[in-house]
């Protein structure tokens, strides 16, 4: 399981625009490099990232090899209600990681 770091404010006012920062450890092997004996190193990247706020999708990204290792993504959302925000990364070779963060909206 890849290590993921999520930064979501624990508390927010209703209707407030909050910043969400996500970071996951992943080598993001581009598929364009070669090993020491000249063989191509197969691509191994995260291809998709989704954020779901209380079962509603709020953010989705398709990632390409041009994204740096350990993908870091920052985005914004409106704090509508208390609950959880789930983050899901999927990628090559069946890679899948999920993380959740709780938020209290006053």
């Amino acid at each position, binding site marked *: 399981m890849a290590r993921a770091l999520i930064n979501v404010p624990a508390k927010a006012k209703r209707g407030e*625009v*909050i910043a969400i920062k996500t970071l996951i450890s992943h080598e993001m092997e*581009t598929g*364009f*490099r*070669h090993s*020491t*004996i*000249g063989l191509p190193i197969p691509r191994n990247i995260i291809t998709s990232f989704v954020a779901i*706020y209380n079962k*509603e*999708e*709020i*953010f*989705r*990204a*398709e*990632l*390409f*090899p*041009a*994204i*740096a*290792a350990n*993908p*870091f*993504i*920052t*985005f*914004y*959302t*409106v704090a*509508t209600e208390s609950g959880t925000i789930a983050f899901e990364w999927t990628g090559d070779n069946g890679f899948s990681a999920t993380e959740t963060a709780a938020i209290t909206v006053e």
Partner: protein
Amino acid sequence: MDRHDGEWRSRRGILKAAGALAAGCGAAMLVRPARATPASMQIAIRNVVGSAAVQQGKVTLDIPPLVENGSTVAVSVAVESPMTPTDYVKAIHIFTEKNPQPNVISIHLGPRAGRANVATRMRLVDTQKIVAIAELSNGSFWSDTADVIITLGACLEDVI
């Protein structure tokens, strides 16, 4: 003696392989056929926007103009939009001119984003132009470009 010869041979082999690796990345940077070109970037952009016109403005692509290490370059895109249910940013795409592939990231937003502003970190193989394109809910496309100078491209990290 034979054993020694064998050792030498393999050691030579290893040195050769190491030399080939060192040369390989440089050569790949010079003659890599898969490298994206301004033309392939235009094709990638057309695949996203279709036949719609892309206008300049509304989008702010923020990337440092001079980068020392192309392996990790912070990039952010902000789009001017009220982000209401009737007028919002649907998608943001980033393209590069000279990386092996023109696409960098495709982001899908909705009115719930509140602010059309995203940031990530990308790889850049060489000094080149970056293009950010935003698709608004009314179907129009807006773009911004930025030139980046790279001192050390992302490919050089091959040489371990």
